[in-house]
């Protein structure tokens, strides 16, 4: 019976093919028959100058885009509340992620997974003792050379797991009570922001115990806290910390971390420095990944909106471009309000997240809650591309 059924199906299929062939030959008899195609697999180029990566807060992959064409180049698989680090030589992608063996239940597995950056083949899974489930760019990062990874862990006590990426093993855990996140500097250290308004700086030698120092408190975490989304140049330790009200604290991170006096981005723009009044209308920084930093030029890009205090999650209607060396405002790029459903937490969904490429002709990548995403020239603010649904809440770029 089965053979009979297969024979019937083959007969029907061949009749269909004959009919199709007849139609094709009637349509364009002069054209040659197309060559058969081979099913193959693409690889990623390693020399894309304006590549960027995005994800959603509960996304199951990172998307890779060419910022010049706007085309998706591929996707990196990822688990729950995942994060991404890119090797300094662009040869590897490191994904910190969490899985349960049965979807949302079963045994929990916290991992750093290593992918080849050309084939996107999984090379190694390193099992972690845990990781913080919070969608912040600085909950995972690598050191200057890419030989170590640091994973922020919240259970809910705070610690940092460090991973030897050469040996591909977990090398140790350091407690950072009252502090959070990782801002790596050099080969052996990182700093964390602390609830008492200080920075903790942790140095972990190749062998022997870790050493921890604290700066004096330099900001008020209740009145004007520093955003989680701050920046460090891993090679130099030069860091930029931005507060809710719009104060920029330059710092040199290291075992003896030094924090300079803050300056106001509103004053740089010719306004009074913004205060913390709940009915004090001012230009204010806000969003999810609300700022981006171009290391070579020292330019800081901040998503700004007009609002009262406690609007620090509201997206930007402008990008302000600031020179962190001279404390000057260089440009203001207005952002058109994107189409909106008018529902949810952000009824006028301006731009929530932003990244900037690190080359000499940088591009800005802007993400909107409803997927009306943009690529802009970072020098002029010229709109280069619109990309539909490029990603969720976070942007990564190579070379940072």
């Amino acid at each position, binding site marked *: 019976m089965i053979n009979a059924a297969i024979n019937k199906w083959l007969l029907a299929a061949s009749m269909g093919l004959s009919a199709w062939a007849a139609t094709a030959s009637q349509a364009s008899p002069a054209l040659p028959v197309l060559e058969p195609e081979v099913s193959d697999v693409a690889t990623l180029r390693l020399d894309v100058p304006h590549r960027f990566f995005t994800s959603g807060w509960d996304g199951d992959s990172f998307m890779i885009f060419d910022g010049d064409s706007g085309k998706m180049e591929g996707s990196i698989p990822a688990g729950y509340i995942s994060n991404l680090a890119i090797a300094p030589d662009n040869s590897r992608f490191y994904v910190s992620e969490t899985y349960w063996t049965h979807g*949302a*239940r079963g045994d929990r597995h916290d991992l750093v997974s290593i992918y080849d950056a050309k084939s996107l083949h999984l090379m190694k899974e390193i099992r972690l003792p845990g990781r913080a489930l*919070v969608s912040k760019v600085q909950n995972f990062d690598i050191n200057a050379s890419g030989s170590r990874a640091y994973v922020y862990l919240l259970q*809910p006590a*705070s610690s940092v797991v460090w991973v030897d990426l050469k040996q591909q093993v977990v090398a140790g855990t350091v407690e950072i009570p*009252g502090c959070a*996140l990782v801002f790596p500097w050099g080969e052996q250290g990182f700093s964390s922001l*602390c*609830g008492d308004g200080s920075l903790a700086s942790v140095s972990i030698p190749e062998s022997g115990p870790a050493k921890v120092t604290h700066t004096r408190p330099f900001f008020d975490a209740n009145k004007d806290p520093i*955003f989680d989304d701050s920046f460090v140049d891993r090679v130099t330790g030069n860091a930029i910390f931005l507060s809710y009200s719009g104060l920029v604290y330059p710092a040199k991170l290291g075992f003896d971390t030094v924090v300079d006096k803050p300056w106001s981005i509103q004053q740089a723009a010719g306004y009074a420095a913004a205060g913390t009044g709940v009915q004090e209308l001012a230009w204010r920084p806000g969003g999810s990944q609300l700022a981006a930093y171009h290391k070579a030029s020292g330019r800081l890009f901040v998503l700004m909106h007009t609002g009262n205090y406690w609007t620090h999650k509201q997206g930007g209607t402008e990008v302000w471009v600031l020179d962190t060396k001279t404390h000057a405002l260089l440009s203001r790029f207005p952002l058109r309000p994107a189409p909106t459903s008018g529902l949810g937490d952000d009824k006028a969904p301006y731009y929530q997240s932003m990244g900037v490429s690190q080359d000499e002709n940088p591009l800005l990548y802007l993400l909107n809650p409803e997927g009306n995403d943009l690529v802009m020239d970072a020098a002029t603010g010229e709109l280069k591309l619109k990309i539909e649904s490029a990603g969720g809440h976070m942007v990564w770029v190579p070379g940072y």
Partner: protein
Amino acid sequence: MSKSPIDKIGEQLTRTLAGYSSRRGFIAKLGAVLAAAPLLPLLPVARAATATAPKTDFERNAQTKDDTKCTYWKYCAADGVMCSCCGGGSHTCPPGAEPSPVSWIGTCLNPDDNRSYIIAYRDCCGTPVCKAGKSCQCDGADRELPTYRAPLNNDIIWCFGNASATYHCSTAALVGLSGT
């Protein structure tokens, strides 16, 4: 001698915690957080809004009738999908989900009685995220602080000590009066 607001909240939260969890491992970890308490400044509940204080943008638009809207008064620092849209209520997990034994904290002004109340934002955990519509995805930010002030941060998945740390939705349980 009357107790300070912070003492009251601590007592109420401790009772709640005792009611939810007997997992010793988790309690030990929570103990490590409490041990770090000297490094943490006081919770901002002591400086909570009063009837005469200027109102935040959220407080100006808050309402007490519809807990399926992001303007519902207890959601002033809520972040996530509201359980009231998912088969639960403003302080009730939907069937099958498990409340987290710990929470983040907010202070919200009730527009009807003009009093400020402490709200415990407790995630419901252990099942995939609730797929309610965008109008139930809220992100209140009144007095919300960064990750390094974890008990006041609403970006963290607050599913510690649960069988599974997957996030389903968020609730807002009234704990008591603030600053009285």
